[in-house]
């Protein structure tokens, strides 16, 4: 507070000199400076990077190669078979990401939907139950990854439970299908609570009298769900699907900690590819990483535009109501 008071006299002088217009510039300046240096400039630089080659990090030390990096990424015999591509790892990661996104978003939407419907019922301690499903959202991805690595490892809890019931035990994270299933389930576990809340807010905004009217007409619950709940929840549901798509495309942290991308490359996703090609591998290639990130960015921009469009439509609908 004293610091703010101390700043007042010089700022008052500034205000007298430049008027309120100058003050607007002053208030914007700190944020815009940081924003400019650490978001806008990198954003523009990324395009230049994607058109250079070499392993140097400074743009000045790099050679301009035009669209060669994109050509390299797109050089593919058959796009559905990563083995035929020049950058097979990129296509493997892209394919993995697509499969991951499909299963993760489906499972996430389904479980979040069921949970939201259940939390919307008249149950005792609703606040508590809501908190239960929200809890993992706050955990860090590293903690999430480590918790589940600990549970899924050879001497872990899951194997113990299976062993108790006499089922076969496995080294879950070193086998392809189980590792993929774990990546999907763990990321659903970690993020589902967030989407449940959005759906729950949507459910609670549906007018009660619609349900009362349906009850008076003796409508069956299933019909009420398909004819009232689902259509009215659709805007929220779409937002949930698109938002979870955006997040799933960028998946990295929790899966990286959980499986490290393995076994082999079976749980290696695009962000990890960019990280490894750009920084972690010995044959690093920042230009290639930048080109790959722009290709991923394009997908994300399209998805975000869809989401913003949906949001705007909802707002307009809300304004009309």
């Amino acid at each position, binding site marked *: 507070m004293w610091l*703010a008071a101390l700043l*007042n006299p010089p700022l*008052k002088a500034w205000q007298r000199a430049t008027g*309120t217009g100058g*003050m*607007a*510039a002053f*208030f*914007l300046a*700190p*944020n*815009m400076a*940081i924003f400019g*240096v*650490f*978001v*806008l*400039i*990198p954003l523009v*630089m*990324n395009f230049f*990077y994607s058109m250079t080659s070499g392993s140097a*990090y400074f*743009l000045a030390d790099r050679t301009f190669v035009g669209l060669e990096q994109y050509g390299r990424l797109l050089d593919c015999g058959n796009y559905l078979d990563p083995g035929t591509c020049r950058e097979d790892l990129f296509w493997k990661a892209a394919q993995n990401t697509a499969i991951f996104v499909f299963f993760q978003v489906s499972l996430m939407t389904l479980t979040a939907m*069921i949970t939201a419907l*259940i939390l919307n*019922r008249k*149950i*005792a301690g609703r606040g508590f139950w809501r*908190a*239960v*499903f929200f*809890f993992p959202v*706050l*955990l*860090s991805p*590293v*903690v999430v990854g*480590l*918790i589940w*690595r*600990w*549970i899924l490892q050879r001497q872990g809890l899951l*194997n113990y439970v299976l062993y*108790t019931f006499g089922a076969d035990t496995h080294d879950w994270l070193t086998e392809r299908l189980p590792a993929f299933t774990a990546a999907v389930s763990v990321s659903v*576990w970690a993020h589902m609570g967030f989407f449940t809340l*959005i759906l729950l807010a949507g459910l609670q905004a549906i007018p009660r009298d619609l349900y009362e009217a349906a009850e008076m007409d003796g409508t069956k619950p299933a019909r009420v769900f398909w004819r009232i709940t689902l259509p009215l929840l659709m805007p929220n549901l779409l*937002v949930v699907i698109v*938002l979870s798509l955006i997040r799933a495309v*960028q998946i*990295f942290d929790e899966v990286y900690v959980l499986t*490290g991308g393995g076994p082999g490359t079976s749980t290696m996703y695009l962000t990890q590819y960019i*990280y490894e090609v750009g920084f972690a591998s010995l044959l690093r290639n920042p230009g290639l990483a*930048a080109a790959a*990130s722009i290709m991923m*960015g394009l997908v*994300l*921009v399209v998805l*975000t535009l869809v989401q*913003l469009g949906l949001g705007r439509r909802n707002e307009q609908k809300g304004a009309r109501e």
Partner: protein
Amino acid sequence: MSAVSKFLFRRRGGNGWHWTDIVTWVWLIGGLIIMFGPALWLVFSSFKSPAQLAEFPPTILPYVSQQAEVEGYDKPLNLYDVTLPDGSTRVLAEVRRIGIVAQMVDPADPGEIIKVNIAERTPVREIGFATENYVTPLESNDFLLYLRNSVFVTLMATLITLITNSMAAFALSKYKFRGRDAVLMLIVGTLMVPLSVLLVPLYSVVSAVGLYNSLWGVILPTVATPTGVFLLRQYMLTIPDELLDAARMDNASEWQIYWRIVLPLAAPALAVLAIFSVVWRWNDFLWPLVVLSSKEVYTLQVGLNTYAGELNVQWHYILAMTVVTMIPVVLVFVFLQRFITSGIAGSGLK
């Protein structure tokens, strides 16, 4: 008792259980186990000794072998329940083991060595917490350093986020100037660019300004968050302009208006952003992983991952450190969860 069960099992309509009631409770109880269980399992496990962690099947509670001081031996010896050839059982202390034969003594009569097949004995155990899992990394390892780095990053980033974002939001909500909508569009537009897309150029910008391998290199790129500016601006739009005009009549400067009137009135929105910023920055992983290269500046998340990534995974330390890493977030959860959940549901934030 019946009141409690009535409360707990309140259900739709009159008597009898509707199938949806069963689904509801199965889902809720299952959710409770699946959502909290793994974290609890981690906490229990973090108190186990390395030997016990390697055990299968695992036990829920941590146990330690009971030991006894035996005359004539320097170290305390582990105690075992032993079934002797004549069928009787005794508690013996193990002196040493050769192959499948253990040489044991009776603690009360240490003179005589008794040879026992190791299949004939089970360790005597009691519940005990291996607190050294926590103490050792905190004392000798870099863990305290990581903790300090993480706290520094989180507090600084949150502070700067609140100051710069609120100033920008104030300008964007309370002034009309040319290019305001353009600035707003620019900020909202970058909502769609995740950091993972900017890794390479951001890395080179951060190195160019000399912040590579420094905590400020972790802090600065994250503080101009579009989400924060947007959230605060929407909130400040609801503060009536008349209030500001009245202050101007009283000869208040624009700066005074900002920190004396607008900031206090925007406190609820600032609080929401502060909580989010703390959780985000505390949990950050990918960016610190890229920008930090030496151990002295690692944050907790990066430090933890390197421990877990090493070939010889020392689970007893990792588990304990993971629990410590969880503490601030669990505190936020316990005290502020209501606040956060309504904030998310209202704004679609994060």
